[in-house]
């Protein structure tokens, strides 16, 4: 890509603008490396026109990024994009942007491109979504997902977090959930999907759920039945199965955490999704200590006091958060 960019013939202004836009997209890509950045520097310095074109593209990019929430809001209230230049739509967008007037109902557009909605929960926030197909999604704290309902399939991407899915039955439209390098496929059922970091777990309450590697990822497909739970790690083909009471997997909905024989590190990671003050657990031995119990999630100090009854630890205030250390006095 970088070579292609530097070798591209830049005769006209339009070409330079195109290359400037290419560079912004490249600089913002996650796989940018230092050699490409140095190529960018060379391109930028080669001609004053390059820097001008880049600065213009950068200014527009930064402005759009800063205004993204307001643009989304204005666009969300209208149906699919139509042909440009229709004055009525322009005015409608402006009013919505000003936040003053609710939009009138727009005609249903059969050719509308599919819309994707993104939902996010903050720390300690739970959220219940009702989808247009009748399915519901209950999101745990610190979660992010996007939903796309198409005619042939229903698709959810869960980059981070946990949710209980209650999927409305529709055989002609499978419900697919992408989490890391695996895809969960269902027709109509109720189950919990949790994707934190590189770890995925799926627990089924009702119906049949299939978990398969995403295209190109290692491993094979598995079918889960009610009361079964699958645990997988990104990049590893092997998975683990266990029996589960689905009510336990979903216990966060009732404001408590239930864990059985789980490493303390995982429990702390869960708690860190519920409270703003970070809990720090540096000690690998303590993090690997297995704990079992039920924690009611009321306030953080109380939760940590209860946690100290379940594991040999003490909580010490530190900076902006709390540090967990092994409590020598509590050692068996």
């Amino acid at each position, binding site marked *: 890509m970088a070579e292609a960019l530097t070798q591209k013939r830049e005769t006209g*202004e339009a070409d*330079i*603008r195109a290359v400037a*836009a290419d560079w*912004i*997209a*490249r600089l913002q*890509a*996650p796989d*940018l490396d*230092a*050699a490409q*950045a*140095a190529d*960018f*520097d*060379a391109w930028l*310095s080669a001609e004053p*026109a390059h820097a*001008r*074109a880049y600065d*213009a*593209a*950068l*200014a*527009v*990019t*930064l*402005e*759009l*990024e*800063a205004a*993204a*929430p*307001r*643009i*989304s*809001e*204005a*666009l969300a209230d209208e149906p699919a*994009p139509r042909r*440009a230049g229709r004055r009525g*739509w322009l005015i409608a*967008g*402006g009013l919505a942007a*000003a*936040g003053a007037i*609710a939009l009138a109902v727009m005609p249903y557009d059969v050719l509308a*491109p599919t819309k*994707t909605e*993104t939902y*996010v929960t*903050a720390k300690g926030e739970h959220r219940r979504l009702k989808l247009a197909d009748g399915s519901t999604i209950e999101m745990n704290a*610190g979660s*992010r997902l*996007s939903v*796309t309902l198409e005619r042939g399939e229903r*698709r959810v*991407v869960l*980059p981070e977090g946990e949710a209980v899915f209650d999927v409305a039955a529709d055989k002609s439209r499978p419900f697919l959930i992408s989490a890391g390098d695996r895809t969960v496929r269902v027709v109509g059922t109720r189950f919990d999907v949790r994707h934190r970091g590189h770890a995925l777990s799926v627990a089924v309450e009702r119906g049949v759920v299939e978990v398969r590697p995403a295209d190109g990822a290692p491993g094979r497909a598995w079918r889960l039945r009610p009361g079964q739970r699958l645990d997988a790690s990104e990049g590893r083909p092997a998975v683990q199965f266990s029996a589960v009471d689905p009510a336990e997997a979903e216990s966060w909905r009732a404001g408590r955490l239930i864990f059985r024989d789980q490493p303390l590190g995982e429990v702390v990671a869960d708690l860190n999704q519920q409270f703003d003050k970070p809990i720090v657990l540096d000690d690998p031995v303590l993090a690997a200590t297995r704990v079992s119990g039920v924690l009611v999630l009321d306030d953080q100090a109380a939760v940590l006091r209860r946690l100290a009854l379940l594991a040999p630890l003490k909580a010490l205030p530190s900076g902006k958060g709390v540090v967990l250390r092994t409590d020598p006095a509590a050692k068996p």
Partner: protein
Amino acid sequence: MADAPKPSATDDPLLAAYLERRANLVRFLAARAGSLAAAEDLAQELYLKLAGRERAQDIGNPTALLYRMALNLMLDRARGEARAAARDSAWRQTAHAQVAGIDVADEPAADDAAAAAQRLRQLVTAVRELPPQAGRAFRLHKLDGLSHAETARVMGLSVKAVEKHVSAALKALTAKLGPRLNS
């Protein structure tokens, strides 16, 4: 900024490269960090790092090393912050949607309101008029905050194709919204 040690640039090729390329570095950092202010902060942090480091004997390509250091600096800093910020802003956005579009907290000052509303209309119109695929990639990635990989998954495209669409969208948006260029 606070007084930093000021070694002589002439006998330090890396520092010399930094001083020569500072404007380019800020442009680079702004694209990745999301604002010029953040880019200036990062450039300053990079300078302090350079000034305080052990001088290496032989630096092959000072420009590449400079950009590698800049990338690492951003990785260190951005990881946690960006995530939290994106989560907060998206959450605020959804929370606002629940109060019937009346956004009290973000209300601009009265004299700026008309200009801001007009500019916002221009932005919205320009995004709405993007070609379908470029528009969808732009909305998912830039407005909804999905990563390149997530956008690719939702659209059923490769990550490279997403980057192409985003670039095409930026080109069209710059032509429409950017300053007139006279070259």
